[in-house]
């Protein structure tokens, strides 16, 4: 094994944590419709997705180094920069999971990289043009492409299959959904686990433990594959609920159309060289399929909250990452502070999530407490989008006070916002 410094060790562990959050954040992409239409039991679905993610991680040696290439000039990359980027991406993933909104993990990671690179090397370190063509345009295009395809496909399958016997239909659409969801999981494993491998490899190269241009070592591939599979198996039930039954009501036919559209879009985009985010494609496909049935509706309030989250993904992750990068300027103390801040925030978010547990047992119940969510959204957004200096102070504050009342104070602090929310929502 290579010579690894403490900082590098922290970066690698953080990268694996990101991979883990990526896994449970994106389970919904492959399995939400399968779960909500009852094609697979929730636990079976996430287990299948986890296995396929793991298989996918090993299937391709085509390394997704592209995550950093092009967008950020590589000379500016230090292990600290990568660490800061990961902090931003993980926090955004956790916050969006807490409020149950699907958002692109890749965008969070790119946002983190952009923010950290700007903080460390100035605005010149980021290619604005690449940002638009690789991030913004695909975010708009993916749901439209996938949505149009899913809507048309749903219409077609209702029209053609109108007089299919009930038994055949139930069995058939179940099999079809499982197959297409499997394909999405497999593609996700190859894409997203590879991203983490690329990040860890980049960190190893930046830290001087690996020669530039080398392939990821075997232990990196194995650990990244395991991390994403474990995350997938844990299941981001909140996001699965939103995607499977929050955005629209899906019948098996629609679930099948949505999943097929998502799989086609993902494969076509990665093959034809116009990379689209899995999350955006899947959410768009679900909405399109929702509209493809006569009398089908999309809950636009949920959809618009999701679109807002997509818009905020890049800047929010960038702001947190640049804040982290600035704090780390102070040296080892800064690095320790950021690491503690990350750990404390993760614990805090997890504790908040326990107030209203969503898991495999209640994932398909439409939540009566939907009105409470905007409150959490606003508080969460406010917490994430504080300016870098505030974030830095918050970092110091949280780390200092985790052990005592501050953490307890964090949790009730969210509560006053919740009762106010229904008024705003109505």
């Amino acid at each position, binding site marked *: 094994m290579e010579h690894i410094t403490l900082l590098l060790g922290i970066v690698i562990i953080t990268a694996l944590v990101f991979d883990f959050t990526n896994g449970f954040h994106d389970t919904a992409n492959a399995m939400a419709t399968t779960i909500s239409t009852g094609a697979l039991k929730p636990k079976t679905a996430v287990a299948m997705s986890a296995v396929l993610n793991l298989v996918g991680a090993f299937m391709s040696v085509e390394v997704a180094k592209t995550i950093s290439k092009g967008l950020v000039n590589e000379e500016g990359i230090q292990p600290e920069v990568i660490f800061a980027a990961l902090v931003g991406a993980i926090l955004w993933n956790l916050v969006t999971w807490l409020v149950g909104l699907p958002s692109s993990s890749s965008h969070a990671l790119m946002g983190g990289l952009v923010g950290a690179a700007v903080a460390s090397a100035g605005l010149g370190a980021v290619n604005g043009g690449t940002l*638009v063509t690789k991030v913004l345009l695909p975010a708009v295009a993916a749901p439209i492409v996938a949505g149009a395809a899913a809507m*048309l*496909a749903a219409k077609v399958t209702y029209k053609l299959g109108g007089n299919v016997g009930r038994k055949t239909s139930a069995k058939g659409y179940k099999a079809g959904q499982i197959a297409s969801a499997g394909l999405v999981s497999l593609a996700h494993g190859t894409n997203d686990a590879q991203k983490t491998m690329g990040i860890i490899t980049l960190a190893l190269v930046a830290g001087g433990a690996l020669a530039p241009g080398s392939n990821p070592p075997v232990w990196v591939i194995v650990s990244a594959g395991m991390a994403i599979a474990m995350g997938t198996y844990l299941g981001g039930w909140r996001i699965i609920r939103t995607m499977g039954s929050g955005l629209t009501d899906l019948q098996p036919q629609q679930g099948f159309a949505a999943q097929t559209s998502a799989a*086609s879009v993902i494969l*076509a985009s990665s093959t034809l060289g116009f990379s689209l985010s899995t999350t955006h494609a899947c959410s768009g496909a679900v909405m399109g399929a929702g509209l493809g049935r006569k009398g089908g509706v999309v809950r636009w309030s949920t959809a618009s909250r999701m679109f807002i989250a997509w818009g905020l993904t890049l800047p929010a992750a960038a702001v947190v990452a640049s804040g982290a990068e600035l704090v780390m300027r102070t040296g080892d103390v800064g690095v320790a502070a950021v690491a503690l801040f990350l750990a404390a925030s993760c614990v805090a978010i997890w504790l908040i999530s326990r107030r209203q547990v969503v898991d495999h047992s209640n994932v398909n119940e439409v939540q009566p407490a939907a009105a409470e969510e905007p409150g959490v959204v606003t508080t969460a957004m406010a917490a994430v989008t504080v300016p870098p200096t505030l974030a830095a102070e918050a970092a110091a504050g949280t780390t200092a006070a985790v052990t005592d009342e501050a953490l307890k104070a964090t949790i009730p602090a969210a509560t006053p916002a919740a009762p106010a929310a229904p008024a705003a929502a109505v």
Partner: protein
Amino acid sequence: MKIDWAALGSVFGVSLSATVALVALFTLGLVGLSKHEAATEQGGTATLARSGAYACFALVAGAVAYGIYLIVS
């Protein structure tokens, strides 16, 4: 800043046609299978419907295999 409209357009076209074609094929397969099952229940057979259904499913399976090939390569 150069936006690759051609690539985006082809992604749109390919995804749309692939999705609709696959879903249509699959549904036709189900229709055939359903006809066959209805016929068997009444003691008859519908060989044509059944073979047609299997042909449809074979094409869909081929597309899935191609998808896996695309992921691996």
